[in-house]
């Protein structure tokens, strides 16, 4: 493995890892979110369109649009699940389809290209030898780590995932906390979408397909429990790196794309099996 290789892996996993931070919170809270991949697509289209429309080529508008999309999708997911008691699987599968459809509709299915350099720097540029996306990931990961470890809100996320009923009795506003995890997941997906768009230098409605699965697999491989209450930023990073190395390895060995997809399916199933066994031995 060369240094170049390593940078490749890190670049590749950065986008999944940022989504993974959101997945981490929803999983610790005892739910999961299937919509992030679609959020990437919608953000890609909209941020590309706004950067083209903005005559001053400033980043303000694209960033606002990005955060706005993340907040909106997160709020819809959170309200459906936390306040209207919908199962997360169905609710976020619904938004997954809806948001992807929206991205395709707005862009007419075509990519938006010719993006300004101030924007593409976010995805392709480096400060020193460190790529900008990696810097963004480090900042977001530290933020998430702090949130989980040092704030009441973070601890309450563990509480609702550990036992939602007991959390309510303990005075935790479980609905609000759950809503927060989905909004956070939405915003993380949106940020990932924006820098990925900058990296590929065009807005693509189909960008980010199945990223949510990469993020969830990464979490579970790292030891985040699907039943809630267990997980940390550290476990997410470890798990995502495993996935990155596997992907990179398969690329290097010229494994075909179809075969890679099969392998990813197998890995996801194995990861979930691992989680089942872990929680069984804990009993």
């Amino acid at each position: 493995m060369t240094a170049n290789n390593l940078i490749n892996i890190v670049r590749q996993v950065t986008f999944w890892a940022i989504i993974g931070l959101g997945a981490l919170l929803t999983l610790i809270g005892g739910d999961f979110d299937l919509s992030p991949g679609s959020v990437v697509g919608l953000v890609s289209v909209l941020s590309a369109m706004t950067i083209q429309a903005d005559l001053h080529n400033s980043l303000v508008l694209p960033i606002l649009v990005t955060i706005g999309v993340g907040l909106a999708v997160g709020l819809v997911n959170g309200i459906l699940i936390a306040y209207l008691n919908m199962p997360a699987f169905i609710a976020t599968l619904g938004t997954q389809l809806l948001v992807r459809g929206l991205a395709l509709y707005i862009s007419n299915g075509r990519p938006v290209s010719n993006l300004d350099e101030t924007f593409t720097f976010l995805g392709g540029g480096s400060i020193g030898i460190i790529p900008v996306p990696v810097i963004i990931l480090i900042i977001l990961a530290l933020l998430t780590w702090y949130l989980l470890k040092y704030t009441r809100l973070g601890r309450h996320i563990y509480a609702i995932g550990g036992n939602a009923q007991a959390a309510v009795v303990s005075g935790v506003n479980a609905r609000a906390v759950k809503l927060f995890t989905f909004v956070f997941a939405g915003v993380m997906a949106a940020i990932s979408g924006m820098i990925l768009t900058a990296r590929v230098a065009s807005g693509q409605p189909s960008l980010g397909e199945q990223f949510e699965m990469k993020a969830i697999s990464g979490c579970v491989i790292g030891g985040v429990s699907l039943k809630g209450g267990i997980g940390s930023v550290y476990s997410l990073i470890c798990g995502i790196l495993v996935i990155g190395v596997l992907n990179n390895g398969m690329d290097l060995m010229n494994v075909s794309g179809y075969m890679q997809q099969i392998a990813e399916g197998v890995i996801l199933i194995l990861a979930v099996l691992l989680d089942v066994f872990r929680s069984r031995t804990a009993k």
Partner: protein
Amino acid sequence: MSNTPLLKMEHIRKVFPGVVALDDVSLTIREGTVHALMGENGAGKSTLMKILTGVYARTEGTILWQGKELDTSSITNVLESGITMIFQELNPIRTMKVCENIYVGREPYKIRGILLDRKKIVEDTRALFEDLGITDIDPNEMVGNLTVAKMQMVEIAKAISYNAKLIIMDEPTSAISEKECQHLFRMVNNLKQRGIAFIFITHKMDEVFQISDEITIMRDGTYVGTYDAGKITHDELVRLMVGREITEMFPKEEAKITDVKLEVSGLTVPGLLEDISFQVHKGEILGFAGLMGAGRTEVMEALFGIRKISSGTIKIDGKEVQIHSPKDAIKYKIAFLTEDRRTTGCFLPLSVRDNIMVCSYDQVSNGMKKISIGKEKKVCKEQIERYAIKTPGQDQIIGNLSGGNQQKVLIARWLLTQPDIIILDEPTRGIDVGSKSEIHKMISRLAGQGVAVIMISSELPEVLGMSDRIMVMYEGKITGEVLREEANQEVIMRYASGITDEAV
């Protein structure tokens, strides 16, 4: 028929790890009779029935069914022998029709395994209902649309269609109206004529005398006796059910009882609680007694903001307060140690520390709302020492602790909030004797510090031993208030069975 009893259970003993649940219990049921099985919560009635129906394996004893050894190795075997149990929580398949429910698993086919004979299912059901005199249930109705009483009828009909000779009903009248109850009893009387026997598990005295021929009383897992229903009185029955002296010692210390801390008046939750009013003073331990399902937990849930109330007021220190959620309740310095540790208490995957701290993060945070891990560990260490929690460390997952230690962790959690009012719902259920007396000492100490304590307990000796005053509930209402000096098991059992106006 012959003199061989239908069922003869003799010298039944059941040992669960560490506990003798049943010791030398006998039960004899004659054909065509109704037999009431009575006793306090935890007397072992359900355990005995679970042994009979093959849910539990007995440790010792014999079961003779029509004079022959009964094979209780599987639930199906017992069912095929002609014994059916109808549970308190009825479990029909609500999304299926009445007739489909009755014949589920043995549907008649036109072509075996392929084409159902729907017409025959309906006709058979109709014939069955006609035979039993059930006229008001349509075989094509969805079971989910039926009232509880009608579902019971369907369950009985199903039992009969299995050629049941003995039908066990666990608290059959707890969820149905007086009229429906009479209807049920008429049906039971009819079936008696055909030689079918019934075992009724019930707490309601008047019904026992109305319907049963014989009464067997159990107490603390032992057999007290079997009596002819015509030759025993209410009072004798109550005395036999509780009939034990208080042998355990409760470390109740004298505490100074001062001003009224909490005043609840007219608390009502439609269908569950009716006009609940009581007061608790500082330094007082107020006991709540009653049978399971009497509504004691529901009162506390309403008070703590878990359950919505339709009317009623709550006053703390004389001022009316609005409590809409547990968060509000905690703000008013109320703590609630819930009944069920696993479902509403412990965060099983989390550490002892997380479990202790969950309500009190503000205490260990700085001005920027940042939690100080150091402070957190220090506070936890103090709590673990103060309440003598046996754990290898703060990071231990709470799921790995014993029940008694889990309970102590939860107590540590609530006392860390420094409550003025603490509600303890069955604080010592399922806990070893050692932890139990530690918890009792702690309750006394709290009262001594001026905390207003409300304690729900189904163990009468515990209620009697610990409380300064006892409220007794029956079917969502408070039926009696007893002072410590006047309290004894008979008085409380009488109120708890809904007998309010009879002379003592």
